[in-house]
């Protein structure tokens, strides 16, 4: 990423996420909060580079939104950022925030993940705007991502409403040219005016909420009128045989596939500009809706009595692509170029081995999943790199649904009478996110779940963000580290094992003992730094002794990308011996510890 700074107006390639950060900064955002989650993660680090903004990692998305609500009520423009499923966590506050409205402008970025590249589902968060009754803007490239974000703050204040920017993986993680003009002088940080008390607006007791609700309905009506002339919705006339209505990244596919035809590009997807749509529909022969995931626009058009081609030909699951849009158009008999690609007879005379993600060399989760597999325990998993535990060679995870759920699912399974020994695995960042109340619950209800807290000192999956346990802020300032061990003890867990992740036998012993506790909750706290944490210490690489190795393959089962098959084979068994890639090895010694023949040794001095 290029550094932001004093730059005069020129075109730069920015990702959608960098552009959202820039737009927020241009709009004078004062406070921003987020919990990292693909594809939203890069927005806050980009924003934190600009002067005059306080940007923070929150412990979860609800905390992020709550903090942003407070900032807005206090009179500062504020931005909350999260991935689509993070909005579920924040939705309790979001629904009532719609009732209170805002103080200063408040924008929520929801980065959806059609295609579920890095998510547990591909929910369509445009529905939240309809459900919660607030506007939703959808940029289709980085220029729009910047412009719409800045626009959203004004819209928020004009209509006294939260505004959602809905991005998607392909908008957030694509780069396209953006007109950038950042003033040279740094923005001064000035205190806000004293808080303006408005309890009937900001205190949602039932009596106030009942009064606010009609106002929210009126706000939606005003927004619906406004949508008709909103500059983010625009008509581009072309050949009127086909009129395409489209939003977000889908518009970019549509404008290539339906080149030369007429378009109504929807920038504000809720509320829809219904008069504008009717007028557009009346001018074209065939009306087509191209949108990703659910038929959000299409169903409203059908309710208006309009005939449209939509999800009957375009898929409602997975990410759209140029090919998928073209194929749908051809199936519908629309006059577009191209042909439906028939799946070709595979030219290869060999099968291409899959390349599933793997735990990195030196990963502290390796010893945990190696042992869980060995002990054949039922594993209730959570969101993080350790979800790789479900893949070969471990194949040792039995349930995973959402952040923090590992402990609750394990608890419920046991309470309902599941006879298997069950272990919940949860990471440090996830523990602070939603693990805390789940653990408190199983303690309170006298459950007998064994919870393994895998503390790798970072939010690893999303690229290594700090959290309350590391005490380092987004700006890099060190502060108090919330001590997981002390927290767990303070909650009342007496059966607690603290183990070094790199001690394979120690981890096994701790799991065995913790699982044998069958009348109360136990915790195994596994400590070992992620290889991406700056303080991670590489140790001398390990080496396979060719003569001693008999190709038993035991070390292959730790699933380390640094352990390879050598060309040499064992004379008796004919099986390939192991070798270790010294460029990848971090010297963690997990393979050395599991080798039954002591054929792996640590080299001296040769730092990995």
């Amino acid at each position, binding site marked *: 990423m290029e550094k932001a700074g004093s730059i005069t107006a020129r075109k730069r390639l920015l990702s959608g996420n960098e552009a959202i950060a820039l737009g927020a900064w241009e709009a004078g955002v004062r406070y921003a909060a987020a919990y990292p989650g693909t594809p939203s993660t890069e927005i806050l680090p980009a924003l934190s580079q600009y002067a005059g903004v306080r940007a923070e990692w929150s412990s979860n998305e609800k905390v992020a939104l709550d903090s942003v609500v407070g900032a807005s009520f206090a009179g500062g423009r504020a931005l909350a950022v999260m991935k689509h499923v993070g909005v579920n966590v924040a939705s309790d506050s979001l629904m009532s925030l719609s009732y209170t409205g805002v103080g200063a402008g408040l924008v929520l970025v929801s980065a959806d993940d059609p295609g579920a590249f890095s998510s547990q589902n591909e929910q369509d968060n445009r529905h939240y705007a309809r459900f919660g009754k607030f506007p939703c803007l959808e940029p289709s490239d980085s220029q729009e991502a910047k412009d719409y974000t800045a626009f959203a703050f004004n819209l928020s204040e004009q209509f006294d409403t939260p505004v959602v920017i809905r991005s998607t993986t392909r908008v957030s993680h694509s780069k396209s040219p953006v007109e950038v003009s950042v003033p040279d002088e740094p923005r001064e940080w000035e205190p806000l005016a004293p808080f303006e008390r408005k309890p009937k607006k900001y205190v949602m007791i039932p009596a106030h909420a009942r009064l606010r609700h009609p106002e929210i309905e009126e706000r939606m009506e005003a927004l619906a009128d406004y949508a008709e002339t909103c500059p983010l919705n625009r008509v581009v006339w072309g050949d009127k045989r086909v009129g395409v209505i489209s939003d977000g990244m889908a518009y970019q596919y549509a404008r290539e596939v339906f080149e030369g035809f007429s378009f109504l590009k929807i920038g504000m997807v809720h509320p829809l500009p219904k008069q504008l749509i009717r007028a557009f529909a009346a001018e074209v022969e065939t009306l087509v809706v191209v949108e990703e995931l659910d038929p959000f626009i299409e169903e409203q058009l059908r309710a208006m009595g309009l005939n449209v081609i939509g999800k009957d030909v375009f898929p409602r699951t997975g990410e759209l692509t140029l*090919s998928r849009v073209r194929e749908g158009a051809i199936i519908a008999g629309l006059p577009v170029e191209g042909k439906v690609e028939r799946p070709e007879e595979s030219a290869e005379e060999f099968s291409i081995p899959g390349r599933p993600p793997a735990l990195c060399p030196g990963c502290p989760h390796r010893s945990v999943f190696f042992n869980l597999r060995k002990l054949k325990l039922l594993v209730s998993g959570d969101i993080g790199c350790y979800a790789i535990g479900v893949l070969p060679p471990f194949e040792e995870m039995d349930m995973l649904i959402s952040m923090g759920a590992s402990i609750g699912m394990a608890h419920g399974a046991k309470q309902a009478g599941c006879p298997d020994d069950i272990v919940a695995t949860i990471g440090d960042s996830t523990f602070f996110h939603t693990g805390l109340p789940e653990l408190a619950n199983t303690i309170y209800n006298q459950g007998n779940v064994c919870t393994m807290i895998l503390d790798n000192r970072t939010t690893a999956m999303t690229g290594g963000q700090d959290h309350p346990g590391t005490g380092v802020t987004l700006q890099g300032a060190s502060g108090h580290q919330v001590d997981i061990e002390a927290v767990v003890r303070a909650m009342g867990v007496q059966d607690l094992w603290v183990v070094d992740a790199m001690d394979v036998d120690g981890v096994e012993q701790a799991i065995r003992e913790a699982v044998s506790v069958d009348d109360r909750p136990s915790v195994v706290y596994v400590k070992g730094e992620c290889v991406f944490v700056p303080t991670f210490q590489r140790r001398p690489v390990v080496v396979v002794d060719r003569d001693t190795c008999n190709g038993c393959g035991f070390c*292959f089962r730790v699933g380390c990308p640094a352990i390879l098959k050598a060309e040499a084979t064992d004379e008796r068994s004919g099986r390939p011996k192991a070798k270790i890639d010294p460029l990848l090895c971090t010297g963690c010694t997990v393979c050395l510890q599991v080798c039954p023949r002591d054929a792996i040794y640590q080299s001296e001095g040769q730092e990995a």
Partner: protein
Amino acid sequence: MLKTTNFLFVGVGGQGILTASDITASVGLAAGYEAKKSEVHGFSQRGGVVESHVRWGENVGASTAEKGTVHFLIALEMLESARWVEWLRPEGVLLINRQRIAPMTVTVGDAEYPPVEVILEAVRARTEDVTLIEGLAIAEELGNTRMTNTVVLGALSTRLDVAPETWLEVIERRVPPKYVELNRNAFWKGRQAAS
């Protein structure tokens, strides 16, 4: 120049694919095109397949190309050239870095890594225009395997109508100052190797 030029960079997490595609997109912008690029982060990056699209043109819509329409497929890893070859348009340009990274499926014995000749034969069914680049070997000679992607960019640059100086300007902006000279060398070595 064609209406839109499509590039697809493929390989394995950690090979510098995102940097290479970033540079290529910026070169397009510097050469006066509208340029877009797309990539995927997150779960798949942990030793998995990484892909990144770049498109240059006058008016580019999508940031990803259609299967079968890629003009330049740049594979930083040999097996990945075969996995993605159908994205290449027939007789498109295929650049392959001679480097093999065994997937976990191969290491644990569930699959075989095909021999180089088999991979090359398979990709040649799609295009005759296949160039094998000793990117890793050249980078090793230069003393830093992380230069592999820059060597490959040097090779790619010989196939495009953009001055090498434009590439170097972008590369210099993109890499840390102490690696500028090494990257320049890697780029020129890549150009030599491909011409």
